[in-house]
C-alpha cells in the first residue's frame, strides 16, 4: 500500500468563537486525485490554508511526506514541493504572463533553466499569444490558467486546486480537465469544487466537508447518490 504524502490528525482551526475546521483526519496517497466538496463555509478553503501554512492550526498536526509542517511558514511548505491555486486567481496583476511564470520558475531553477521552463510552460498551456500581456488585463479564465502555470512550473508533488473550474466556459473546463489529468501523472491533487459534472469527470474518491468537519469519504458515485450529501447541498440538513 502506497504511503501517505499528506496526513492531518485532529486538525482544528478556530477564529475566536468560530470553528472553521474541527478535528479533521485526512490522508492522501502519492499521485492520488481527491475532490473536496461541501457547502460554502464548510471549512474546505481553511483546510487548504492550514496545509499551505497560511493559517496555523489551533490544534492538531499536518504531516507532509512524514514531516510535521503544522507550524511552518508558507514559503517553507511551498519549497517542499506543494503548490496551490487559490479560489480567486492570486497572481501578479501588474506583470506580464511570462514574467509571472518566470518568477515561479526562478524559485526552483537557476537563470537559464528558469527561462527554459518558462518557455516550456507557456507552450504547454498554449499561452504564447498572450505571453507579453499584462495579467490584470486578461480574463478570469486566462488568469486561472496562468495561476495553474505558476503552480506546475515548480514540478510539485502535491497540488491544491481551489475551484479550478469556477467561471470557466465549457471548452475551458475541458482544457482544464486535460491539464489536471496530466499534472496527476506526477503529483497528487486535491480539488475543491462545486461543479458536480466536473467532479464526476475527474474524481474517483470524494471527501465531503460539512460545518468544518469531514462528513463522508467515498467513491464519487456513492457520494453523489448519498441522501445526506444531497440534503446538505439542497439545505435540508443542519
Amino acid at each position, binding site marked *: 500500500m502506497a504511503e501517505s504524502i499528506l496526513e492531518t490528525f485532529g486538525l482544528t482551526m478556530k477564529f475566536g468563537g468560530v470553528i472553521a475546521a474541527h478535528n479533521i483526519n485526512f490522508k492522501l496517497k502519492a499521485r492520488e486525485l481527491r475532490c473536496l466538496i461541501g457547502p460554502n463555509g464548510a471549512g474546505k478553503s481553511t483546510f487548504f490554508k492550514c496545509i499551505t501554512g497560511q493559517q496555523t492550526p489551533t490544534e492538531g498536526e499536518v504531516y507532509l511526506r512524514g514531516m510535521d509542517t503544522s507550524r511552518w*511558514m*508558507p514559503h517553507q511548505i511551498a519549497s517542499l514541493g506543494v503548490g496551490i491555486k487559490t479560489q480567486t486567481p492570486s497572481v*501578479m496583476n*501588474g506583470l506580464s504572463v511570462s*514574467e509571472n511564470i518566470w518568477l515561479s520558475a526562478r524559485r526552483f531553477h537557476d537563470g537559464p533553466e528558469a527561462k527554459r521552463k518558462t518557455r516550456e510552460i507557456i507552450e504547454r498551456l498554449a499561452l504564447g499569444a498572450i505571453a507579453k500581456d*499584462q495579467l490584470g488585463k486578461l480574463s478570469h479564465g486566462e488568469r486561472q490558467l496562468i495561476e495553474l502555470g505558476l503552480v506546475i512550473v515548480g514540478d510539485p508533488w502535491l497540488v491544491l486546486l481551489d475551484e479550478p473550474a469556477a467561471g470557466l466556459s465549457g471548452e475551458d473546463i475541458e482544457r482544464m480537465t486535460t491539464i489536471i489529468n496530466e499534472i496527476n501523472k506526477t503529483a497528487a491533487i486535491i480539488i475543491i469544487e462545486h461543479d458536480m459534472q466536473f467532479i464526476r469527470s475527474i474524481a474517483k474518491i470524494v471527501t465531503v466537508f460539512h460545518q468544518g468537519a469531514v462528513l463522508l469519504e467515498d467513491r464519487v458515485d456513492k457520494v453523489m447518490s448519498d441522501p445526506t450529501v444531497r440534503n446538505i447541498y439542497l439545505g435540508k440538513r443542519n
Partner: protein
Amino acid sequence: MAGSFSRDVIATIGLTVVVIWILPYVISTFTITVLIVYGLLGLSLGLVWGYGGILCFGQAVFFGIGAYTYAISAINIGESTLPMLLSIIVPSLFAALLGAMMFYGRLTDVYLGVITLVVTLIFYRFINSTAGPHYKIGNAQLGGFNGIPGFQTLNIPGQPSSYIWGDGYFYFCAVVLAIVYLGVSILLRSDFGRIIVGIRENETRMSLLGYDVRARKTILFAIGGGIAGLSGALFANWGEIVTPSVFSLGQSAEIILWCIVGGLGTRFGPILGAAGLSYLKFLLGQQSFVDNTLITGLILVFFVLFLPKGIVPTIVNVWDLKFGRLLSDRFQKPRRNRKLRLNG
C-alpha cells in the same frame, strides 16, 4: 535586457553631463548640490516604496543617522573616507534591524507606517535632548538642538587637508548620484530586483511560490537605508553642520511627497520630484507673500487629483500612446499590451 541596460547607462551619462555642464548656468552649483543630495534621498524611498511596496514614513531617520554618523566619526577620525563608508553601513544596519523586526513580525502596511513614523519622532526628540555636556561620543559633542558643527568635511582619501568643496563637491555629488542610479538599475534588473517587484505585486502569491518574502524585504529596506544614509552624509558635508531637523517629520513627509509628485515605480521620478519640489521650496523661501507649506499642500492635492501616477509615468504613458502607436502602425504589428518595464 543587456540592450536596455546600455540605454540606461547612456541616458544616465547624458543626464549627468546636462546637470554638470548646463544646469550651473541657470542655478548656482551650491543649490544644485543640495538638490542632488535630495534626489539621492528621493531615490532611496523610490526604491523601497516604488519597487518594494514598502511605504516607509521614516526615511528621514536613515538620512539623519547617516548625517550624524558622518559628523560624529569625522570628528573622531579626522578624515572623511571611513566616515563616508560608516554613514552608509550604520543606517543600513539599523534599517536591517528595524526591517527584520517589522517584516518577521508580520506587520501589515498600516503598522509599518506607524512604526517608522514613531521611530522618526523618537530620534527627533532624543537628538534634541542631547544638549548636555555628557552627551558625547568620543570627542564629538551631540549638541542637542544646536547640532554638530565643525567636523572634518570631505577630503581626498588619505589627505585630510585636501578638501573637496565648492564646484568640486558639486561634481562629486553628481557622480555619486549617477553611480547610485546605475546601481539601482542593475539591482532592479537582477533576479533579486525582479523578485522584489513580484513581492510588491502580490506578497501572498510570492510566499506561496516558496520565496521568503520577509528576508528579501529586509534586504531591500537595508539597501534603501544605506542610500538614504549616504545622502545624509553628503548633506552634512554640504551644510557643514548637522542638526536634529534632519530627523523631523516635515523632512519625512517631504520625501513621500517627492515620490508621489515624481512618480512611483520609476527611478528617475523621485529624483525629479525631490529636485523640483526642493527648488520650488527654495524659491518660495525668498518671498513672504504666500506660505511655503500652503503651496506644497496645493501641489500635493493637484497631483493626487489630476496626475495620481506622478510626472514621469504620465510622460511615459503619453509617449507610449503617441509614439508607440505610430511605431506599431508603421510596422503593421498591433501592440496588444505594453510589457511592464522599469520606467524612467
